[in-house]
């Protein structure tokens, strides 16, 4: 058990969950006082002692399922005879005798209808036995087997039968009732899916050993997901972390602001106060510094792959809007348009991005990024509104499709702003490869940041929103000095 725990802790650390030594010791002490045979108890115990952040719980669950997969919770009364023959029958192809299939589908359906967990687990075990066709040593992931089992189980039919059974006796005209039934169906099917997944994982672990399975299942935490290459599941996860992340960041900034006391001496009030002490200025009084809130202009490339990144940058920045005195947003592909009116508190960003795609005039020629032309248009239309109070943030990969970069335009803009930053979602090593012209622009920026994850984005916003940050010798950009890290 001790070895197992040590390995488990090492796995948690590998996923990115910080587990301190004290916490590891706590876990070992805790395991000593519980019934180790009880899987749920063990899970609760390890969860309480090792994981101290709710965002890390999903990663913990996955690791736990893998490491303690072999400790099965065996439901009473399951018949185990199918295990032996299962392997033989599996690979008989799609056109096999339907008797077994129908029987299996029926038992899955019964278990689903009864909502009985033990029966469901047994059904899941049989389904994996008969349908997944797992081959020892074959280097495919669990998802492959899961997909295969689910497809053969005929989920659509299960869904429709479950639905018709559950909606017996309800008012067929009521949209609400229908919705509730649908949700119940999905929740039960979800449970079935989870059981099948667990069963497959158990077998994979038995076959290949836990370390290797854990490695294949390892997933980055949401704040470390790559913003540019995220799939739909990732996007949902990102959505979920944005809100807590920004809230915490705002709280942190507000606190730091309050603590700062670097205002100038308030002479009049100090003298007034000193009268109470017979003219001795016992207690100097300082002017409270007016909190500096930068005016922010966001200029986002929304072509193709940049769109997702732009969306999260916008969403993150708008969530932080209270930290800025003004926030305006512009999007461009090969020309530029202002989109500030589409955003605001309580706006659904996925929807807003669709609006932008249809309404904003960002395509001039052919819909391929043209940074040069976009900068020119931006200067033409908004030159007068860029002031020394403005912090300009450009986001994009600087892939200009071999068009003129016209970096001097950015220099012109940059000279008018308080600070200019560039966020590039590509890894630093890709910059200036192919049609990327990052190094042409970077001399005119006060900072060029690689922002591939929410964590990096958070770090960036924290830097620019702090008082005193970004104060630069305004000549620096004109002298062509780069501050790219």
């Amino acid at each position, binding site marked *: 058990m001790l070895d197992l725990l040590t390995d488990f802790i090492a796995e948690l650390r590998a996923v990115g969950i910080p587990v301190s030594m004290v916490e590891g010791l706590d876990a070992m002490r805790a395991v000593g006082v*519980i019934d180790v045979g009880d899987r749920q108890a063990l899970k*609760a*115990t390890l*969860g*309480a002692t090792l994981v101290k*952040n709710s965002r890390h719980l999903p990663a913990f669950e996955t690791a736990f399922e893998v490491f303690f997969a072999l400790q099965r919770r065996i439901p009473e009364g399951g018949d185990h005879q199918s295990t032996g023959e299962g392997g033989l029958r599996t690979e008989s192809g799609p056109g096999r005798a339907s008797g077994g299939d129908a029987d299996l589908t029926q038992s899955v359906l019964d278990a689903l209808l009864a909502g009985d967990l033990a029966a469901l687990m047994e059904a899941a075990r049989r389904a994996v036995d008969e349908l997944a066709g797992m081959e020892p040593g074959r280097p495919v992931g669990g998802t492959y087997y899961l997909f295969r089992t689910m497809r053969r189980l005929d989920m659509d039919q299960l869904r429709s039968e479950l639905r018709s059974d559950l909606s017996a006796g309800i008012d067929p005209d009521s949209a*609400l009732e229908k919705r509730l039934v649908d949700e*119940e169906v999905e929740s039960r099917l979800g449970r079935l899916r989870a059981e099948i997944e667990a069963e497959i994982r158990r077998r994979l672990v038995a076959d290949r050993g836990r370390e290797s399975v854990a490695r294949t299942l390892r997933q980055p935490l949401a704040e470390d997901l790559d913003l540019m290459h995220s799939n739909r599941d990732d996007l949902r996860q990102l959505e979920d972390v944005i809100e807590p992340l920004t809230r915490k960041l705002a709280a942190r900034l507000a606190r730091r602001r309050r603590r700062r006391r670097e205002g100038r001496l308030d002479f009049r009030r100090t003298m007034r106060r000193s009268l109470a002490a017979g003219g001795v200025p016992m207690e100097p009084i300082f002017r409270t510094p007016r909190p500096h809130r930068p005016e922010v202009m966001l200029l986002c490339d929304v072509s193709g792959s940049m769109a997702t990144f732009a969306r999260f940058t916008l969403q993150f920045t708008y969530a932080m809007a209270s930290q800025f005195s003004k926030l305006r947003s512009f999007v461009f592909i090969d020309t530029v348009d202002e989109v500030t009116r589409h955003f605001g508190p309580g706006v*659904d960003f996925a929807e807003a991005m669709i609006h932008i795609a249809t309404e904003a005039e960002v395509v001039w020629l052919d819909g391929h990024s043209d940074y040069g032309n976009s900068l020119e248009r931006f200067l033409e239309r908004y030159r007068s509104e860029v002031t020394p109070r403005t912090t300009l943030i450009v986001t994009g990969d600087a892939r200009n499709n071999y068009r003129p970069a016209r970096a001097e335009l950015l220099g012109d803009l940059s000279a008018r702003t308080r600070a200019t930053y560039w966020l590039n979602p590509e890894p630093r090593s890709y910059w200036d490869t192919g049609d990327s012209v990052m190094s042409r622009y970077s001399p005119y920026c006060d900072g060029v940041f690689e922002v591939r994850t929410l964590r990096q984005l958070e770090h960036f916003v924290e830097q620019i929103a702090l008082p005193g940050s970004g104060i630069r010798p305004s000549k620096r950009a004109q002298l062509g000095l780069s501050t790219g890290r």
Partner: protein
Amino acid sequence: MEFTDPKVVASALAEADYLADERIAQVVFLADRLQKPILVEGPAGVGKTELAKSLAVISGRRLIRLQCYEGLDEAKALYEWNYKKQLLRIQSDRDHEWSKLEDDIFGEEFLLTRPLLEAIRSPEPVVLLIDEVDRVEVETEALLLEVLSDFQVSIPELGTVRASSVPMVVLTSNNTRELSEALKRRCLFLHIGYPDAEREKEILLHRIPGLPATLADQVARVVRSIRALDLKKPPSVSESIDWARTLLALAVEHVDEEAINGTLHVLLKYQADIEKTAKELELAAG
């Protein structure tokens, strides 16, 4: 009572009208065994504070509560010298020597105990609830550390006060900011989320006597449906209890569109949320 087993904890809590799932019971059991504080985190209104109260009830201990807020300091959390009384004491006998007097005025008599010190000095064990610990500043958190790990408080004039009995400590957090590592390390972590439909139904039945099972079932399912929407403030357990009470009081037997439409404001606290829900659930405009 003694917590001999997680199951015993769960059933005792159930008797105190708190339906704990396996995980909660397990963590409570561990906290008792290892004598460690529990840090409970989760959205508002899922019964974090309630857990501490129920623990006090089932263990027959006194509940001492420290409500945290921004600006909470030592004088309000730990102890304070009763300086008015000290002044009076000094004035009342001027003839004594200073050295003697000094020993005198920093004695127990002049100490005002605040919740943390009180919990530690209590002769019989108590339940200490430190509510919404995420509201204090990071610096103030440090005040708690000594109490939480060693169950002692250092007072410069008196020395270290050790716990005469180990209190059971519950900290709650709404997660508005990241708590410090040092604090988290000393605690067992318990995340309480929204319950699933079945458990919510049980909670409703438990909390509201006379609620028909079918109504509880419907309420739980509608609430689950609403929580799945993307809302500013999803309905919490306490709000779904309120809602079920309202429906019961209105003698609604069957939750339909009309019933929801008329009472949605009990469940949701933002107009935007109410509108969105009405739209999503396709309730007739009301």
